């Protein structure tokens, strides 16, 4: 069972024309610049906008086709917008349980309690929305959307209106939600950071059309997409935590291409960790450097390259199925005589642990 979508509509001077089949679990990021039709797409899926000729089916249930249109309030979904928009005439608990009350679901149930626990809202329940911070409001909005037992959760740039500090306060909650949630989540965003931290799958939109869709790891490794442009160029590597070393304060993560040694962090052995490796932190040598301070060195093969600006070239590298980008100067690219197919060593100066 999955989510099937077909849209072809014009709205506010923008057109959307796409056909998608989305995963029925995990987080799928809908990524694109502003004006790419992300929000229109989400609103159309929710049924907030009614476009003739669209098709929406979730888990085998048709929400919209040529013949019928299930109104929003009869769709088993949860939505969180960029602005929390809590009901200002209700307190936090009443906000959280609003949907349950309307749907005639039992109040004060265990699921609601665990959602309140998960989002750390216990101490806010009797406050008014006017007295909460932006981050707290957004957590309440998330709880409110979850308590109605949705079968699909739609998040429309839920962090975009928050400053960096607040974003970082909420991201861990979204990560927890990602781990614990059994329903598919569509996450609209223009932030690659959020995509790398939260999403499993992604759809790249441009001008209302799907430019690419697939796993996040796969799409990040494509040089032709926006993720492969300028200094944001980076790849994602999903690894498993295998060892913590207390003496040097290091953790060892393993992926199919080899081991990464990173600063020790708190994670159970066997748990999954996702690394984001920026192209600017990767350099290439022809022989394995022994007298270097760099810990993470891998045998890799050059797959492809693409000039970046006038001085640089972005090189994509493969190590046993994993992808890395290296951002080199054109001068060294030419002096080292690098070409697709050539085997080299990649030195990874630093990695970011994103999930």
């Amino acid at each position, binding site marked *: 069972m999955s989510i099937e979508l077909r849209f072809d509509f014009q709205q506010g001077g923008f057109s959307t024309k796409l056909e998608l089949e989305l995963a029925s679990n995990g987080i799928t990021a809908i990524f694109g610049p502003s004006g790419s039709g992300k929000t229109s797409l989400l609103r159309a899926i929710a049924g907030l906008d009614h476009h003739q000729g669209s098709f929406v089916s979730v888990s085998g249930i048709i929400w919209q086709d040529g013949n019928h249109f299930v109104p929003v*309030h009869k769709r088993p979904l949860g*939505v969180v*917008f960029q602005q929390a*928009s809590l*009901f200002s*005439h209700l307190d936090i608990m009443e906000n959280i349980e609003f*949907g349950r009350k*309307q749907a005639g679901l039992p109040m004060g149930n265990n699921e609601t309690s665990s959602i309140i626990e998960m989002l750390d809202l216990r101490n806010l329940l009797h406050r008014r929305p006017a007295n909460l911070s932006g981050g707290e409001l957004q957590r309440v909005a998330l709880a409110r959307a979850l308590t*109605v037992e949705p079968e699909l959760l739609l998040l429309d740039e839920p962090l975009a209106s928050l400053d960096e500090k607040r974003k970082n306060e909420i991201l861990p909650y979204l990560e927890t939600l990602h781990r614990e949630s059994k329903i598919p989540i569509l996450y609209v965003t223009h932030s690659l950071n959020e995509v790398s931290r939260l999403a499993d799958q992604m759809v790249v939109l441009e001008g209302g059309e799907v430019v690419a869709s697939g796993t996040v790891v796969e799409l990040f490794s494509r040089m032709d997409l926006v993720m492969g442009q300028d200094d944001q160029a980076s790849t994602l590597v999903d690894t498993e935590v295998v060892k913590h070393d207390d003496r040097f304060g290091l953790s060892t993560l393993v992926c199919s291409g080899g081991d990464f040694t990173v600063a020790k962090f708190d994670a159970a052995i066997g748990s999954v960790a996702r690394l984001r490796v920026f192209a600017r932190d990767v350099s290439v040598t022809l022989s394995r450097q022994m007298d270097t301070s760099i810990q993470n060195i891998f045998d890799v093969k050059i797959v492809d390259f693409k000039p970046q600006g006038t001085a640089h070239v972005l090189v994509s590298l493969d190590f046993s199925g994993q992808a890395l980008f290296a951002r080199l100067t054109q001068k060294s690219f030419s002096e080292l005589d690098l070409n697709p197919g050539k085997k080299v060593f990649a030195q990874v100066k630093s990695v970011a642990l994103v999930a």
Partner: protein
Amino acid sequence: MLTPDDIEALTLTLKLAAVSTVILLLLGTPLAWWLAHTRWRAKFLIESVIALPLVLPPTVLGFYLLLALGPNGIAGGSTLAFTFFGLVVGSVIYSLPFVVQPLQDAFINVGRRPLEIAATLRTSPIRAFFSVAIPLARPGFITAAILGFAHTLGEFGVVLMIGGNIPGKTRVASIAIYDHVESLEYAQAHILAAVLLVISFVMLVAVFILNRRFRTVRL
């Protein structure tokens, strides 16, 4: 002190204002909702008609109402002229902008977002209207109710035209004051005028206290 006649006029005035306010809210709410949400381009025509009582001499309004509600009027020989219910009809039309405009502003202020959120939370449009739109538009309702009531209290020209001056039926406080002045009973006029002044002042103070931000009627 107030004479029994004056008390009767005051009671009638309050009753007229109360009945009119209830009817105004019942009529004004859907009308204001529609005006706040319609995308119809010519809605300004409806808005202008509703705003007419703000600029029209009440006698003009009263005159047409008299023609319409009288025995040979377009209302099909209705006998509403010179009755209490005729006054109610007149008051409702006369005070409509004072109720519709604050409500329309309040609904616009609430916006579509809370209703969309409610829809995503299993709430039908009707239920969303009652459980979200109306509570959030509360300041507008307070303003509308009080302005509608206060404005009806002060009605004179329309009443004079369609209600006449029948004690106990159509003789409201403002008419009674006029009568007293005509008969040079300034003391009686004073008392009645002061009562109206105090009631109106107290109600406007109430609007300010309850809403803090007081949006006046716009034209």
